[in-house]
């Protein structure tokens, strides 16, 4: 269980994380979503006690990271790929970490096997590709067989086979009852892996929601309509409870009425239609919309609830 309460981080004048509160519970994969630069990595470093919080607090199973008796036995983290001395071998890198927390040296070979680096374990890490670096980082996270795991963009640099492997790994770690917190800037990736997501933008919490719920909200339908009498059509649709907006290309985007209803309404009012196309908004688009909005509403005190309401409409 990871609990963040009002977590805030300033870098000089820049506000990187802004009063972030969320819970990550055990037994499920929790995605940590946000565009690049939204404060995901900073938050993860604060969880690990690497960066000090300017305000607020974050605990792991009720304790601060700095107070853990055997940190690597309790928390494992992949914070960045290739954060390793290029002259040191993968095996020695893991060994020195194991020794620092009295983890059996035999465990080093076990995790190397798990991530598939056994054959290159004695090679200098400087020669590793980004994907191999990620695997080594994952091995380091698994080293102490911890209850709580953090992964910052774990699929970066992995090939399709590696990506599939990471998805399976994350899910099985959660199935074993562990707390798994994974950051990503790809909604589609989290839709495949996570059960719950914490979405942030510009360092602020946008919402914490289950993926199922988000899918239900996210795949809402809209209809693309164009007509020579756009204003007239819009008035009719608005009067009948639909939500309309004009797109960049001059066509109308309609929600709350399907293509048949729109067609019938247009016919009743003798409005000519040129186009009537049902659109399905992808999860990725829903996410983009959410995070863009966070930029737009940045500074507004009620950004969180306001957006949440908007999604539920």
């Amino acid at each position, binding site marked *: 269980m990871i609990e963040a309460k009002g977590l805030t981080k300033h870098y000089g004048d820049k506000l990187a994380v802004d009063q972030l509160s969320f819970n990550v519970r055990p037994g499920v994969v929790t995605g940590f979503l946000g565009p690049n630069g939204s404060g995901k990595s900073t938050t993860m*470093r604060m969880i*690990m*006690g*690497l*960066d*000090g919080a300017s305000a607020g607090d974050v605990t792991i199973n009720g304790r601060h*990271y*700095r107070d*853990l*008796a*055997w*940190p*690597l*036995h*309790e*928390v494992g*983290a992949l*914070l*960045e790929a*290739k*954060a*390793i*001395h*290029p*002259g*040191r*071998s993968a095996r*020695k*890198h893991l*060994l*020195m*970490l194991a*020794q*620092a*927390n*009295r983890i059996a040296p035999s465990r080093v070979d*076990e*995790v190397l*096997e*798990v*991530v*598939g*680096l056994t*054959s290159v374990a004695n090679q200098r890490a400087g020669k590793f590709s980004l994907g*191999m670096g990620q695997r080594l980082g994952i091995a*380091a996270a*698994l080293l102490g*067989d911890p209850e709580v795991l953090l992964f910052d963009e774990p699929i970066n640099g992995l090939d399709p*086979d*590696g990506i599939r*492997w990471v998805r*399976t*790994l994350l899910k*099985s*770690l959660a199935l*074993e009852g562990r707390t798994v917190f994974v950051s990503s800037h790809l909604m589609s990736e989290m839709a495949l892996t996570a059960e719950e997501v914490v979405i942030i933008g510009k360092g602020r919490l946008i919402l914490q929601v289950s993926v199922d719920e988000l899918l239900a909200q996210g795949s809402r339908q809209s209809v693309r309509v164009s007509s020579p009498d756009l204003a007239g059509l819009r008035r009719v649709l608005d009067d009948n409870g639909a939500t309309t907006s004009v797109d960049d290309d001059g066509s109308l985007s309609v929600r709350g009425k399907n293509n048949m209803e729109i067609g019938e309404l247009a016919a009743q009012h003798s409005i000519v239609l040129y186009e009537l196309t049902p659109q399905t908004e992808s999860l990725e688009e829903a996410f983009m919309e959410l995070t863009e909005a966070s930029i737009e509403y940045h500074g507004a005190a009620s950004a969180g609830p306001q957006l949440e309401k908007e999604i539920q409409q």
Partner: protein
Amino acid sequence: MTTNSTVLIREKRIPAGRYSLTDLMRSEWTKLLSVRSTMWTLGLTVFVGLGVSAIASYETRTHWLSQPQSHVGFDPTSLSLAGVYVAQLIIGVLGVMVMSGEYGTGTIRATFSASPRRPLVLVAKGIVFGVVTLVVAMVTSFLSFFLGQGLLSSPAVHATLSTPGALREIVGTGLFLGLIGLFALGLATVIRHTAGAISTFVGILLVLPNVLRPLPNSIYEDVSKFLPSRIGANILSIGPGQQGNGFSPWVGLLIMAIYTAVLLIISAVVMVRRDA
């Protein structure tokens, strides 16, 4: 590359107590010896120390009879330890790299994840690196002495371990090099960048004396005796019973130890305060 999609079966065995200095020292030992540059640098220290000693001693003996003016106040021990001037630079570079290598590569975050009590990391690193450096420095110092004295031989004057002051010079040199290594480690912890830390180290050791040189002589003498380079030189140059301008070797070593201790305390403080 083959990968297993299953995770190992969990059998949690968390040790009793808490991770300790001993655990971290074991980790630091592995870190130190698992990068090639350490072995290269330590090897180079011994090689250069002995090499300079051999050349200086051999040259002196060759020209001994033709240069009688140099016999006055000749200290064969000091001559055979001349390699210290180069060795201190190499050891300093190693001291810097041991710490800046962690910051530069991001390994420091892995290190602090394993040990969030950061000062303990500094202590473990200091002990492991300090002891290794001290041993290598002592070995280099003694070997340089024996090699140098062997090459000096007749007709030149040469020393033995029982020559007054000889043992003090040899041990003093070893201790000085050990402290220089820790001093560099401290600098690197504060500065964190390899190039910056090495420049600062070389600046303090080699450039600072020259910068101070234009000062009026009386002031220069008062100030320069506090410089590490001057302290190091005095360990080698003040013969028994001689009264030099600077501190005596033991006082000099004490001052050097104080510098190092202060720098390491500052290091510990900034290490805790800064984001990793």
